[in-house]
């Protein structure tokens, strides 16, 4: 047992100024951080609002920020934090959601985004599921979305996401990862409609920062599923939205010289009209010694172009075999 300081962000939920309050708790290093919070509530301050239920990483109720990182406090151990944080654990409510009181947030925006993706099979009326029998899938088909069913909707990823925090248009990691699951389900008939439904900024505002991958307690790897969705969208819808224009434009850009031609990329992504807005920026950059002179093509460009000739064709994303060995963290 050791003395640990819990530094908890208190919030009365009635407009008072949020402030940190310290509680010293006697607790073992191998105990869950949640155990300390419950101790505080039971022994020191019954007004502390904290949400939890199963205490075994299944219900997803107890996500909050632990020393800045979004985590489930039922599975995060005291010792993992105290060693590197001077015996102190700073606890704040999840980010990107309004605080109701102390460590309890209003998850409405999170669930609204989940509902938006229609998280259920959409069937073709002309091709209904077999009645009275199971609708079978091959192990390979199931393997296409093996990560997403692990999701317990704890919203850790949503709390960790800087795009969610900066733009209400973005659907966020969890909703998009769940949506991906339906786009590769052979029983679902709304493939095109689903991909159309997340254009443009609902999907393309993902920053690929991978903070959601680190925050996820179940290794759903939302950022990677979002890249999968972008690939599917690029194939299905093509160069229509800015995000697609940018990634497909980038792909073509490198084929021409081997290295990026920054000016040409801006022109391809923004269009001629959008480029006009960038002219001033170009002058500013040159005035500050930023060269916009493009570099000559790389040596061995023909090798790069041979790679393009061989591989620059639609990939079979939905049918691809996926490597084994990537499992839940720590497996």
């Amino acid at each position, binding site marked *: 047992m050791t003395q640990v300081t819990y530094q908890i962000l208190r919030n009365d939920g009635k407009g008072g100024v949020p402030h940190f309050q310290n509680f010293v708790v006697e607790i073992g290093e191998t105990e869950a951080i949640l155990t300390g919070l419950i101790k505080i509530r039971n022994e020191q301050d019954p007004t502390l609002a904290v949400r939890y239920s199963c205490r075994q990483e299944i219900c997803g109720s107890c996500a909050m920020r632990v020393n800045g990182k979004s985590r489930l406090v039922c599975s995060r151990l005291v010792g993992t934090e105290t060693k590197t944080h001077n015996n102190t654990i700073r606890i704040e409510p999840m980010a990107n959601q309004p605080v109701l009181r102390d460590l309890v947030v209003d998850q409405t925006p999170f669930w609204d985004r989940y509902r938006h993706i229609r998280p259920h099979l959409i069937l073709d009326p002309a091709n209904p599921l077999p009645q009275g029998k199971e609708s079978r899938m091959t192990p390979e088909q199931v393997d296409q979305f093996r990560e997403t069913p692990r999701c317990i909707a704890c919203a850790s990823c949503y709390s960790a996401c800087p795009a969610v925090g900066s733009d209400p248009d973005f659907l966020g990691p969890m909703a998009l990862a769940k949506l991906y699951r339906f786009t590769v389900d052979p029983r679902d008939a709304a493939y095109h409609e689903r991909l159309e439904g997340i254009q443009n900024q609902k999907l393309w505002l993902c920053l690929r920062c991978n903070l959601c991958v680190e925050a996820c307690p179940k290794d759903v790897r939302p950022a990677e599923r979002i890249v999968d969705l972008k690939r599917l969208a690029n194939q299905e819808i093509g160069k229509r939205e800015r995000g697609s224009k940018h990634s497909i434009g980038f792909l073509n850009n490198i084929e021409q010289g081997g290295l990026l031609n920054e000016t040409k990329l801006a022109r391809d992504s923004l269009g001629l009209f959008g480029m006009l807005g960038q002219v001033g920026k170009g002058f500013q950059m040159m005035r500050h*010694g930023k060269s916009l002179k493009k570099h000559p093509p790389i040596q061995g460009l023909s090798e790069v172009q041979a790679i393009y000739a061989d591989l620059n064709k639609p990939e079979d994303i939905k049918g691809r075999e996926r490597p084994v060995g990537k499992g839940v963290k720590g497996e």
Partner: protein
Amino acid sequence: MTVKVAYYPGCVAQESGRELDMATRAVAAALGIELVDFPTFSCCGSGFIDEANMTLNIALNARNLALAERAGLNTVMTICSTCQGMLTHARHTMKHDAVVKARVDQTLGKIGFQYQGTAVPKHLLQIISEDLGGAEMLRPLVRRPLTGTKVAAFYGCHILRPHDVMKFDDPEEPHTFEDIIKVLGAEPVYYRGRVQCCGFPIQFVKPETAQRIAGNQIREAKQGGADAMATPCPLCHISLDTYQKEAGKAVGEDLNMPVLHFPQLIGIALGLDPKTLGLPRHMVDPQLLLNKVSVSVPA
């Protein structure tokens, strides 16, 4: 101790951010890192090619790594968090995804390459931290300590995450950059934004959001008392320096925050010539920081 590496400067350091290449060459010479140039290296794809065609992206980077292997070099030194991420991702996929590897091997075979997997991509920050003895190796080289200044590190996502692929530092609470800042004599600023995104990936999707993200990170560093920010990623540098005026407008504040490239910060403390470090090539004049250590940037 000297190391010999295949030098992978990446696109930006060869175009709009040439000051990064200049500073890298100067600092590498001072640290005993021998850079071997490869005019044959192609772009890493920056994550965007991966969104359009995964296999093609892996093949491009497998070729880059194979070029270094062919020259007998085991380290590919990057100076961009994003290049580091993409090259490492390719190496990881070639190791763990037999289906993609078979397809890529077939393509590379046609142009006379055989990918072995012996060359490891490593960022300069990683080489200093892991191979050259850590931040302490810099201590005897410091000629002009940055005493009295506060510097905010901005890591750039792809050097850190996903951690099970990158296997470097801590993905959410890293310390290697701050360790170096301390040895150089400055005080590091710890702020949430240091491990977050600079907004660059969506600069062309929704500029106002990208700039608001950048603006928030700079503002937070400023609130922490930073005299300057420094980043190991030239794409972050574009968001934080090149577009700082727009970022300031997006958050309604005149930010005026110098942003240095990682090797420039080291170079200043090592007493290298400011012009050789490319210090006059920034949108926000780094003089604000340099005044505090009595260095002047030539016009």
